[in-house]
């Protein structure tokens, strides 16, 4: 479970996120949307413990991220928009490294299972430079899932993927939530992705929460009684159609 209470992040005089509160339960996928500069990435970075919050509290699987960041981070996985890999480590060496960092003992069996599931077992001895964008993304996912996290954060997970890769990524996210009970936050500009796989939506603008709830609830909030209002229309109405 992810619990965020009064999260605020300031950079000098600039407030990137202002008093944000939300909860994501196990099995839920929350879509984080908003115009550019809304504070989505900052929210994700604070929620993963990458940057400290200026104010507010964050709990990951019941553990206070500020009080015990190491224990909290053991419960989560962060999948950035750009697959960041160590260029001198092969696919299997990446998994060995991740296993050591996350204290995964006897990781080989699980690693091989993940590689097989993600269809990159035959690339095990290759370096990132030899992998396609989709393969790299799969390797990042394999490393992130190795320690069976309870909380996951995806930042623009479909960037650079081909149609088949997009389908598989969507299936993976849905399976992780439904079958493994992970609490997932997904940041994306692709509203169709949110409609397809998210159970909840959080719309942000200028660091503030504009709307939060299940998809039907958020749609209802901005449809003003109209029927068949698309999420795109809801987004435009919610954000006023501008970035600022």
């Amino acid at each position: 479970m992810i619990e965020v209470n009064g999260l605020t992040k300031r950079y000098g005089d600039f407030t990137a996120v202002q008093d944000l509160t939300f909860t994501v339960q196990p099995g839920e996928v929350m879509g984080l949307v908003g115009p550019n500069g809304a504070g989505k990435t900052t929210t994700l970075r604070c929620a993963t413990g990458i940057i400290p919050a200026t104010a507010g509290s964050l709990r990951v699987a019941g553990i206070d991220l500020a009080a015990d960041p190491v224990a909290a981070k053991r419960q989560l996985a962060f999948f950035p928009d750009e697959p960041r890999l160590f260029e001198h480590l092969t696919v299997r060496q990446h998994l060995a490294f991740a296993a050591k960092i996350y204290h995964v003992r006897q990781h080989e069996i699980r690693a091989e299972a993940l590689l097989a599931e993600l269809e990159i077992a035959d690339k095990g001895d290759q370096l990132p430079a030899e992998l396609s964008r989709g393969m790299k993304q799969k390797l990042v996912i394999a490393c992130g899932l190795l320690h069976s996290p309870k909380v996951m954060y995806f930042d623009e997970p479909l960037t650079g993927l081909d149609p088949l890769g997009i389908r598989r990524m969507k299936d993976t996210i849905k399976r992780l939530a439904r079958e493994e009970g992970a609490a997932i936050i997904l940041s994306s500009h692709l509203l169709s992705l949110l409609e397809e796989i998210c159970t909840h939506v959080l719309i942000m603008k200028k660091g503030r929460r504009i709307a939060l709830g299940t998809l039907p609830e958020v749609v209802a909030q901005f449809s003003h009684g109209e029927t068949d209002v698309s999420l795109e229309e809801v987004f435009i109405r919610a954000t006023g159609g501008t970035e600022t």
Partner: protein
Amino acid sequence: MHVFRALLYLRLMSLRNAVGHQVRRLRQPKYLIGAIAGAAYFWFFFFRQTGAGNPVGVMSEILKEGRVEYFAAAMFTLYLLVTWITPSDKPGLAFSEAEVAFLFPAPLARRQLIHYKLLNGLLMSLFGAFFFTLLSSTTRGNWLGALRTLGAWWSINATLSLHNTAAALTITRLSAAGLGTGRRRALIVSLLLAALTTGAFFVDRDGWTSLEILLWPARLAVRPFLADSFGHYLLALIPAAGLVALHYIWCHRLETPFEEASIAQAQKLGERITRLRAGKGLRFGGKAKAQRGPFPLGDRLPPEFAFLWKNLLAAPSYLNRKVFLGAAAIIYLGMTWLMNHPADDGPKIAGAAGVIALILLAYLLIFGPQLARNDLRGDIGNADMLKAYPLPGWRIVLGSLLAPAVIMTAVAWLFLLMAGLALLPPSGDKALWFTPQFRIALVAALAVIMPALLTVQLLVPNTATLLFPAWSQTARSMGGGMDVMGQRMIFFFGQILCLAAALIPAVVLGGGTIFLTQWMIGLPAAIALAVIPVLLVFIGEICLGVWFLGERFEKLDLSSELRA
């Protein structure tokens, strides 16, 4: 003509914006401080210096004495020959990625592109000439002299630059025609020998040596630089400029396809820039290759070893255990052989090698930590990923420091081995204390404290990276300027200062231990004993440094640091 106006506009606007960008960023204190340090260095080194103290100034003075024209021409010719025998892998006409994207599909004739690139090369030669003119001590306060030197350097630079381009384009043509590297080199050497032999046979009788004939074009190029009066300078400048013009025509007339090689080179350059901007540093020796892990990453090892393991994998493959052991064996056998052959001056040669090893060790201590980058500096671009790991900051910092510390320690031990085997007692009766036990104790003590000392030294550049990540990113970017030069200097002097600060308590405690105990237990044992307090000091400094850096790493937010 409109095409050239457009290309000229591109060049001038790029230059104006680059200068404007550098000036504007001086509003940020980090760049302003760097710029002040760089300007101060520039002023004191180039303008305030008296006499011909700087290297180029000295060289200029030397060149103006005696029959230096031949020497300069010989160097010039040698450089030209090297461009033919071992050419660089860059294409003759190198375009940037943006130039490829905008100019290649544009309605421009190939010849226009060639003109653009050649003229651009001439402009770059002018910048190079300007820099060399600044370095020349003879131009200080003498504007006419400075202008002369500028023209002379420009003709040399421009000829060399155009010759490089022409050689690269010609070699591309020859390669396309099936003339491989080996055959090309053999052909060039044969032509050279044939020219010298023929010249010797036919020309020497008229008072000209074949060498003079061979050096004649190069002498034309260097003469303006060596002219002793303004009149002679102008007379010398005409054939030198003619040489530049001939090279220009040569390049322009070569019908060599350059597009594919230029695109490949632009992509390579783009990758290098991307790597540098991602904080990954330059990569030498081609693409990365998959390697076996340097040691088994067992379950019982602490996570710091995972960083060591990862960063050793990222190190060049020749930095491995076998190579170090092999080098140690060679050093041991070689030095022992030299020490046992006094008749062949073996001990003297070994002594010289030992001194060189000590000098290299000193260099390693000062420059090694700045150059070894497979630590936090290499990973700063991945800081977000590292910060998401379930590890406290100090463990990530400690793990990151291990690989460069291990590699530099291995290199330092090789230098110590060489110096230790070459150590000879000073001549005279006062060298009674220089026993084999003393030699072993001294080398062993240095070997034991070396890993800790190098780790302390590594803390300095990593501290700079975490305290000033923007500086670190800038120093790695392709951009230059006075401010970046100043930043690098501040890092370097910071390294020296920290070395001194780290050494003072260790030296005081170690020296005190030796002084107090040598009377009781002898000098070798006192040296061995002194290792304990020295190590304790270094370990204390490392703990303090790693703790501080860990705290800093946990609070690091690159997005806010690089916001400016």
